[in-house]
């Protein structure tokens, strides 16, 4: 009985089912809450991959900021329940068949690609070595990826300014 495999299967099954129900649920509040469940389980999946810094960032940024923003927008806009349309069902089944083919093709290609390189094996996580994971990420981020880090800062600034500009313009028009 392998505990790593059991934990992985639990996290994977909960993530897949919660995202499927989130996509298919008729009410947006249920969608946001089910995606919250998926994101917390994904944070623990990142913990099994030896990335405890990314676990904390995932919980703070995704669950704490982005999904709360979605939830506030859902509360701000009074939505009625989405109605089913019979015209839509045909296209949905067509899209589903195409997607099954696409997913099978992707998985098959990636497994062929992996079988060409049999050197992928599980190594020790970074935390067991003498430096912690946070130390390695900070070292690489501020040495090798400094320009990209600055560009991400500019992108976030432009996003904030754009959001404020878009919302304010409507108020002055009305």
């Amino acid at each position: 009985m392998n505990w790593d495999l059991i934990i992985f299967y639990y996290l994977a099954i909960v993530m897949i089912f919660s995202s499927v129900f989130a996509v298919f649920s008729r009410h947006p509040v249920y969608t946001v809450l089910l995606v919250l469940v998926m994101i917390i389980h994904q944070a623990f999946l990142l913990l099994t991959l030896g990335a405890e810094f990314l676990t904390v960032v995932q919980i703070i940024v995704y669950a704490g900021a982005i999904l709360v923003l979605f939830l506030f927008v859902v509360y701000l806009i009074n939505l009625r329940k989405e109605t089913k349309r019979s015209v839509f069902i045909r296209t949905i089944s067509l899209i589903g068949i195409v997607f099954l083919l696409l997913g099978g093709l992707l998985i098959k290609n990636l497994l062929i690609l992996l079988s060409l390189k049999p050197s992928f094996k599980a190594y020790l996580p970074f935390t067991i070595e003498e430096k912690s994971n946070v130390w390695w990420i900070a070292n690489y981020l501020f040495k090798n990826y400094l320009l990209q880090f600055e560009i991400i800062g500019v992108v976030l600034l432009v996003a904030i300014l754009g959001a404020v500009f878009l919302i304010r313009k409507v108020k002055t028009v009305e």
Partner: protein
Amino acid sequence: MPTLEYYIILSIILFLIGLFGFLSRRNLIVILISIEIMLNGLIILFAAISYFTKDISGYIIVFFIIAMAAAEAAIGLSLVVLIYKRLRTVYSDEITNFKG
């Protein structure tokens, strides 16, 4: 111990679920959440490859993906609020202002 194939298959399944929701739903908020599900599949893929090849670059790409997701959610939700204030709907098949 789950190998790299398990994580890759999980990430592809999540990506396809998000893509299906992006194409098949009509509510604009659910479409944005489907984009988030697709980005979460990519996060699993990059973190797993970074763990199994013992290279730290994948974790930093995950960091950048999370920052881009925050920016994208802010812009997308402000556009949704703008569309709701102008047109009083968030369903993508009812936005027919540009029809001739």
